[in-house]
């Protein structure tokens, strides 16, 4: 506890970096996965193979991918953008499936009704299917967010500091308190971020609240 208070500003700095390294891949992953998931659902051919590519990508172990990416892209090995890129790749791989499930959960009858009342394809996608897919999309974001916050902690192995640095530093100094506090901080950060997504869901989908209150 004393150690935690003594190093509060250091830990706060690491937590900020950790937050950015986690939020960026989740948001980027969502933006990229949304159209791919939509296409996977609606394309008659190729939809299934999009999903199998996503699941194969997800089986690639994280540390190897983290060191392969700079080799492929020509970025520096210690560049933080490698971490963001790798975590975005995983986020896309998971969210493509959840986005496909989310759009699949929208009732066909509702989409047909929208078509019958003259909605264009774009209007149907954005004003009918997207809001109705919202709850399942949110569930997908929450799963990815938790695992991303946890996965970021291996980045100190390639020289990118964040809360995971408390593990490598504690290990090198044989100081257990630091490692325990690191784990607690990571778990708390994951929970806080999860709460943010839930609140964001309530703001953007107020009708769900109204329904559950009735």
């Amino acid at each position, binding site marked *: 506890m004393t150690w935690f208070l003594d190093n509060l500003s250091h830990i706060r700095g690491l937590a900020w970096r950790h937050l950015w390294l986690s939020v960026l891949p989740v948001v980027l992953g969502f933006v990229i996965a949304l159209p791919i998931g939509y296409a996977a659902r609606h394309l008659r051919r190729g939809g299934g193979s999009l999903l199998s590519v996503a699941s*194969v990508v997800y*089986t*690639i*172990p*994280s*540390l*190897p*991918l983290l*060191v*392969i990416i700079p*080799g*492929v892209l020509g970025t520096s*090995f210690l560049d933080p953008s490698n971490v963001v890129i790798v975590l975005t790749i995983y986020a896309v791989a998971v969210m493509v499936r959840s986005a496909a499930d989310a759009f699949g959960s929208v009732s066909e009858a509702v989409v047909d009704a929208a078509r019958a009342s003259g909605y264009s394809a774009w209007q149907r996608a954005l004003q009918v299917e997207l809001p109705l897919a919202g709850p399942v999309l949110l569930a997908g974001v929450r*799963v990815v967010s*938790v*695992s991303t*916050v*946890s*996965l970021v*902690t*291996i980045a*100190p*192995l*390639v020289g990118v500091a964040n809360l*995971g640095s*408390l*593990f*490598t530093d*504690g*290990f090198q100094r*044989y*100081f*257990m308190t630091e*490692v*325990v506090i*690191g*784990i607690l901080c*990571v*778990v708390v950060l*994951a*929970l806080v971020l999860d709460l943010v997504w839930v609140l964001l869901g309530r703001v953007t989908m107020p009708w769900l609240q109204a329904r559950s209150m009735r």
Partner: protein
Amino acid sequence: MNIASEAASWLTDGAHWHGEDGFPHRIVQHLGYTALTVAIAAVIAVPLGLWIGHTGRLRGLAIAATGALRALPTLGLLTLMVLWRGIGLTSPTIALVVLAIPPLLAGAYAGLEAVDRQTVDAARAIGMTEWQVLGKVEIPIALPLIIGGFRSAVLQVVATATIAAYIGLGGLGRYIIDGLAVRDYPQILAGATVIVVLALALDAVFAVVQRSLATPR
């Protein structure tokens, strides 16, 4: 020469295919850790998962435990184990077992839950004992999902065993951790490539096994 072709020549250099530090030995080590930890985890998780799936008890607890473990940072768990139990094989083994339990548990209880209730009732109605219902009806039908649990557990352990090289475990992660320490990028890339190929190959084997076990409809 660029890094990719340097890595390729590192990979194909005959000197890296012999002895303690050679690829064959490291691959066998890596697979050995994986087999050991998944076996230990299975002894704990599969009976528990089958019990939860069969009786429907403690289901909420199993889901909560699976979710909580996803939030647990693996590097934190690994370093904590070393500081607690000391360096050696025991610490990483415990950490890897802990991480292999949730997917195995989930595969077992989700597999049994997916079995049609009417099928189970029919089995009871024709006079099967609870053990027979479990062994002759539920497990065979749930097998693809149970194997799916093994598939996730194996991939999880292969990935984490790589990271465990940081706390002194052998296996393929050594190339990455040792390479990072001396900034030997060809070695890092060569090691990383072998791990990725190993993971994809294991995943493919499990995919084939799962497909062959699926009940014909």
